[in-house]
């Protein structure tokens, strides 16, 4: 093989190896970091896995918010389509967190099927409804 071709071959092999490695890593990282979304209904019915990082959302049930007097832990219920699930969160609530407002959180289910959230999002507009929640509401509405 002449030197130019050999060089070109080397370059191409290098490129392929790099792209292959990158793709493998990317897919692996993607697989590890996907958070599936579950509605309160799926959380209580047992469809949602316990102890895995998941996302969940719903409407904050009015009057359900309780604060721990010593620290920043709050518990409240969120619901879609009449199914309620208890949420526990420690930290500062987002600005637009309000009872009756749609929220989405990331966290884990504990053994009692309470949603232990480590991140809560209520988006930046007062009319905003997280699409997952809207979807769950629509589904519950259609089912009834």
């Amino acid at each position, binding site marked *: 093989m002449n030197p*130019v071709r050999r*060089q070109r071959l*080397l*370059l191409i092999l290098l*490129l392929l190896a*790099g*792209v292959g490695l*990158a793709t493998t*890593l*990317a897919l692996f*990282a*993607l697989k*590890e*970091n*996907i*958070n*599936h*979304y579950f509605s309160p209904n799926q959380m209580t019915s047992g469809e949602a896995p316990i102890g895995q990082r998941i*996302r969940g959302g719903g409407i904050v049930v009015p009057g359900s918010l309780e*604060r721990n007097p*010593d*620290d*920043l832990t709050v518990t409240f219920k969120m619901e879609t389509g009449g199914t309620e699930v208890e949420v526990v969160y*420690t*930290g*500062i*609530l987002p*600005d*637009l967190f309000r009872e009756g407002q749609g929220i989405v959180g*990331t966290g884990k289910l504990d053994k009692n099927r309470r949603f232990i959230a480590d991140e809560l999002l209520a*988006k*930046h*507009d*007062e009319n*905003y409804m*997280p*699409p*997952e929640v809207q*979807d769950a509401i629509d589904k519950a509405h259609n089912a009834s």
Partner: protein
Amino acid sequence: MNPELGLFALILATCLAILQSVAPLFGSYSGRLPWMAAGKWLAAGQFVFVLLSFICLVVAFLTDDFTVSYVANNSNSLLPDIYKLTATWAGHEGSLLLWILTLAGWGMMVSVRCDKLPPELSARVLSVLGMVSVGFLLFILVTSNPFARILPFPPQDGADLNPLLQDVGMIFHPPVLYMGYVGFAVVFAFAIAALLGGQLDSAWARWVRPWTTAAWCFLTLGISLGSWWAYYELGWGGWWFWDPVENASLMPWLAGTALMHSLAVTEKRGLFKSWTLLLAIATFSLSLFGTFLVRSGVLTSVHAFASDPERGMFILAYLMVVVGASLALFAVRAPQMGSRITFSLLSRETLLLVNNILLAVSCATVLLGTMFPLLVDALDLGMISVGPPYFNALFVPQVLLLGLALGIGILLNWKSGSFSKLLHQVRWIALVSALGGVAFALFYAERFIVSEALAMAVVLWLVLTAGRDILDKTRNARQKMSFMASLQKLPASYLGMHLAHLGLALTIIGAAMTSGYSLQRDLRMSPGDTAWLGQYQFRFDGVTQMQGPNYVTNIGIITILDDQQQPIAVLQPEKRVYSVRGMPMTEAGIDPGLTRDLYVALGEPLGDDSWAVRLHVKPYVRLIWLGSIFMALGGLLAVCDKRYRIRLKKNKTNLKPGIALGGQV
């Protein structure tokens, strides 16, 4: 009357844009100079009418014309005047108008400076820019008319600007970002013109480089302004969230960075021609794609305010036409662009190729992470989200690899480098960098963090190799004059390159330090309570209520003391409630510093005068944005390089005073 004038101007601009996309192109094929020259005037006319239309919208905002539905939705009579001005681009319609104004502005700049280009090339460039304009102008006119009226019953007052957007960041972030986004339309137009003409030489690359670099500077600044704004406005203390909209701006930046480097090879060595063209197409397509993501409502984000499927379909169709047509043209014409120049495996070309591969792969990584949830949702496989750990796990190593390649690439010669010379140059640097990185991570904090050690090693590597290169380049000159004088002898674009790379090093330091060594506590504080965070003591002195122009605010007072109980700063974080929308907003209190930011934000009142409070210490977070300023300045320096103006000097008869001044830089 005013809104109708605006709409009329916009329609006129559309007509001019249609003419601009047809006439010069026709002239370039039939060889008619007047037709080609018409592009200049049409581009100028288009800019004037779009500007007029934009001014009409600004006037509608400043005069509280709530008969205009866009104004009624995004403004309020109580809004301070400066935010009435910025509200012009706060919503979907207005931000599109700003987009097209920016595009027309770039087109105008091209038309002013294109006298020196071959007439066919400049005619085709202006035509392509005209076509891009037509698409967006039609989009505005058909789906998103900012001048639509609510008649006969206009509201008494407006619905107010989203409080998040009532901030100085709103003045600068969108226009600068758009200058960057849209600026890549110029290099895209040049690429299409080159494909149409079937000719691409190093003169072409030399014309395109300053335009690309200029757009890149704006995009760099725009992204970093957005990051800085999110940092202090959202009250979470983060500077990058891997939010899909952030990713939408990062992707063209990555592609654009690759393009800048690939253009360097095309100009200096006549290589990578088709790759450069492909990158030019990809960069602008990603800009359009970003616009699609943000404006179509497929995403939910701070930025996504339009969830109108009709609009989404229009942009999607437009995107497909632009990308499809340009890729088809590329497929037909690119094979003619091949070059027969060779280079050895160890050469600057190879390292720039590595740079391009890494940037392209990282761009693909971000694209995958951003699009995957949408894909899965579209295929009805459930709802998922891809978390920041995905991006961090992949993006960070790629940046570090890029840093390694950069250090080698800087030192290597074009065409063929010598391995033994390279080894001689870098052996000590490599050793010092590796030891330095490890030593830093060992001694800076109790906890040894591998990624911080790697990041610092790469930073040292970047800085030392750059220093080595500068010393080598000034070796002869330094014997006759001082170091500073010999620096000034070097070409501006060379110094700009090093300045921008230094900026990258600074940004890496900032990002690594902030993500590795930030301290944070969320806690409940009553007046008089104190809390320690690192070497700082935070004392909560209570909250007072005040009335702002269009909001009520609770101002917290937090005094920060050092370990000798000496006060360092008194911060006043706020919790505002904007009256019109009843929307609460957090304003963080920040004591900025080069080595650390002290950052506090108020949460919610918990009764008995106690509040939820968030405290942060963020080491070196400012370097993230300082680095991006360095990058932009480096780009600016490169744009000003005399090399790009040589043609102007030869052509003295046409020289205008303003341009002559520019030539002196």
